[in-house]
């Protein structure tokens, strides 16, 4: 940035001064020169005045010396006339001289400067005094005729000596006159000299002033205007982002401004560079993305950029597709309208998303998810669109497969229900005939022989057992098929238990047992399927009645806690062997079948009950009692069905 000039130390000093200083210099320099010129003019004119004064004084001295001489000469002539005539009127010049001489002498005394003249003047002054005294004596001697006669000799002597004094004085005066003439010439010459030098000085002042002004303007223009011009150009360059013209790094305001501008330019260029690099990085990232086709479209839908992902998904290379309309990616069926529609949507809503079939370069189709986003510049004008394409073919396939699988499952489920319904029908229909006819035989057994009667009885017993087996099996299967009949209602448990009690009392009584019913608190409501709850309770009570052959009672109890309704069936029979407990709810596992061969059962009751309870989100369990067994199950409380499903600890 530093521009070294050959004479940098000097210009540099000037250049480094602040602008105020420079302005002051530029204005002050011509003024100072002008002022100097004025002073010199003043001095010159002063010298001239003095010289002229000297000349005037020389003339005055000449005049006065002549006057002194004239006054004395006239006074002497008068005195002589007086001596000769005795007439007083001859004394007039003497008296005039007596009056004027001191004045003239004093004037001369004041004006004489020259030493030689002063010396001669002193001689004259003495001679004058001598002369005046001489004249005084002469006048006194020649006062009266008598006196005059008496003093004739003295008078004569006085007249002679007086004449000598006057002659001497005349010589001195001539000398002074001569001297003054010399001085006058000298002074005249000096005045001319001063006048000449004044002219020269004025000329020099004018020239120096002019040069000074020119120098100041030059300095100003080089120091300021030139640099301001550079600054102006640099500002333009800065705006364009080009490199700036170098500028001397002077320390004044303009120099500082220039340096700041250079720094700003450097910063801007660094920033621009960083931006370019970041854009480049971003471009590389975009171009490198493989899973997404990311590319730009012009406002008209012409492909303006292309990335690897787009190449991978669509098959075109960048040079093959750039400049073409993006409707090429659409299949024939949608090419006419969909691309235009997508752009219109993106233009209106900012973005448009679509999923559908697109074509690759080789003509194959793929299922694409496409998002077109409108791109705006800072002023809000539409610049084009960004399009992101994803190949969703695989996902679509898996979704389709999933859907198919789901449909298959639903169909399978339907088929299962259909199968159950059919099986139910197919198994029951013959049972209907067997049991129906069997019952008819039983009803009319008085017509049968005892042997036949017993046969019919056995057939009926086996048939009923088979029927209950079929029923339980179908129930379990139907629950496992998806609980087709589950209908959860609010059930009043007291009411339900009383109904069940009425239903199973005969069985319990037939077993020779007491039936104890412990009803729940009034208003105990369960959220469950009424039929299933009834079925489970029936199962449990029937079981208890069936297996309690040593005890005296069956007890049915219902309680509620915060979230659950708990129903338990307890007996005071033999209880259940601890080893058998884990297998209680397993189908067809009739415990100790060999020892209890006399007890009739399908082996499905508890398994069915377990499934029924679990289908209503309940739990079923068993507790060993000191004497006997306790089976329990829980279902949700109606008013607590929406609360947390906390399980009781057991």
């Amino acid at each position, binding site marked *: 940035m530093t521009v070294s000039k050959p004479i940098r130390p000097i210009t540099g000093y000037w250049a480094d001064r602040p602008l105020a200083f420079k302005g002051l210099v530029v204005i002050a320099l011509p003024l100072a020169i002008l002022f100097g010129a004025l002073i010199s003019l003043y001095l010159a004119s002063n010298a001239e005045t003095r010289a002229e004064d000297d000349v005037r004084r020389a003339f005055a001295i000449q005049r006065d010396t002549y006057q002194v001489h004239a006054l004395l000469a006239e006074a002497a002539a008068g005195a002589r006339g007086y001596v000769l005539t005795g007439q007083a009127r001859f004394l007039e010049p003497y008296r005039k001289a007596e009056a004027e001489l001191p004045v003239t002498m004093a004037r001369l005394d004041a004006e004489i400067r020259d030493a030689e003249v002063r010396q001669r003047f002193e001689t004259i002054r003495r001679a004058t005094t001598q002369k005046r005294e001489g004249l005084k004596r002469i006048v006194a001697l020649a006062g009266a005729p008598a006196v005059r006669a008496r003093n004739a000799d003295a008078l004569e002597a006085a007249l002679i000596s007086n004449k000598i004094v006057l002659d001497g004085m005349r010589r001195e005066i001539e000398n002074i006159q001569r001297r003054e003439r010399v001085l006058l010439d000298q002074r005249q010459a000096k005045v001319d000299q001063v006048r000449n030098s004044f002219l020269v000085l004025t000329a020099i002042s004018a020239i120096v002033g002019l040069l000074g002004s020119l120098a100041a303007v030059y300095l100003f223009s080089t120091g300021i205007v030139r640099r301001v011009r550079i600054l102006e150009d640099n500002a333009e360059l800065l705006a364009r982002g080009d490199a700036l013209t170098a500028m001397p790094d002077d320390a004044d305001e303009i120099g500082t401004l220039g340096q700041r501008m250079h720094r700003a330019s450097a910063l801007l260029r660094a920033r621009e560079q960083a931006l370019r690099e970041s854009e480049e990085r971003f471009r590389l990232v975009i171009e490198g993305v493989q899973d997404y086709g990311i590319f730009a479209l012009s406002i008209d839908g012409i492909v303006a950029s292309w990335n690897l992902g787009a190449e991978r998904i669509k098959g075109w290379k960048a040079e093959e597709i750039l400049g073409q309309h993006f409707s090429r990616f659409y299949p024939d069926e949608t090419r006419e309208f969909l691309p235009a529609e997508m752009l219109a949507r993106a233009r209106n809503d900012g973005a448009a998303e679509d999923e559908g079939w697109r074509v690759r370069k080789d003509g194959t189709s793929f299922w694409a998810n496409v998002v077109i986003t409108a791109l705006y510049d800072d002023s809000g004008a539409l610049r084009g669109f960004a399009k992101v394409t994803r190949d969703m073919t695989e996902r679509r396939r898996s979704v389709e497969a999933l859907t198919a699988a789901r449909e298959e499952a639903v169909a399978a489920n339907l088929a299962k229900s259909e199968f159950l*319904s059919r099986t*139910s*029908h*197919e*198994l*029951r*229909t*013959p*049972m*209907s*005939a*067997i*049991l*129906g*006819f069997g*019952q*008819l035989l039983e*009803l*009319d057994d008085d017509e049968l022989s005892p042997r036949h009667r017993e046969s019919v009885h056995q057939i009926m017993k086996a048939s009923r057992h088979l*029927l209950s087996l079929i029923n339980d099996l179908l129930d379990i299967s*139907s629950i496992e098929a998806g609980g*087709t*009949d589950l*209908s959860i209602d609010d059930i009043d448990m007291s009411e339900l238990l009383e109904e069940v009690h009425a239903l199973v009392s005969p069985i319990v009584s037939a077993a020779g047992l007491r039936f104890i019913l412990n009803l729940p608190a009034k208003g105990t409501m369960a959220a469950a399927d009424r*039929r299933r709850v009834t079925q489970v309770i029936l199962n449990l009570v029937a079981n208890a009645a069936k297996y309690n052959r040593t005890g005296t009672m069956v007890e049915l109890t219902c309680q509620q806690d915060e979230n659950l309704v708990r129903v338990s069936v307890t007996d005071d029979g033999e209880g259940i062997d601890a080893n058998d407990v884990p297998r209680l709810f397993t189908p067809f596992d009739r415990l100790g079948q060999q020892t209890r061969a006399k007890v009739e059962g399908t082996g499905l009751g508890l398994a069915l009950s377990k499934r029924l309870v679990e289908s209503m989100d309940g739990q079923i369990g068993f507790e060993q009692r000191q004497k006997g067994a306790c089976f329990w199950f829980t279902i949700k409380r109606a008013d607590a069905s929406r609360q947390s499903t906390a399980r009781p600890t057991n």
Partner: protein
Amino acid sequence: MPANLVDNQQILAKRILAIDDEEANVLLLKNVLEREGYKDIHCITDPEKALDAYITLSPDLVLLDLMMPKIDGFQLLEAFSRHDKSDEFRPVLVLTADTTLQTRRRALALGAKDFVSKPFDVIEVALRISNLLETRILYERLKHV
């Protein structure tokens, strides 16, 4: 008691139409009814002839099986109710081996007056039949008052 209102002979004289594709079941119903003393019993095992029989015989009670080939009991129920006048009470007792809730609801919604699942108790079926017939007789009586 119904016995006081309607004479038993009057009930037993009523015409009953039993429709079931299973021969054995139709036979069972016939046996049950004969055992009770019914005289006018008609049996159909081909469901395609059921509607014709229903129209020509104009029975007082129909015993209907639901699950039958070609034309099932539901279709017959619809056909019967399309055919009958609205002020007629001609009860249909559905007998089916399909005990699912949907089936029962659908049958009753289509106009079945009662529902018995197979296998059934002979005595129960006989009672239901006589009850339905008694209701029909009382209804007819009210209509002619």
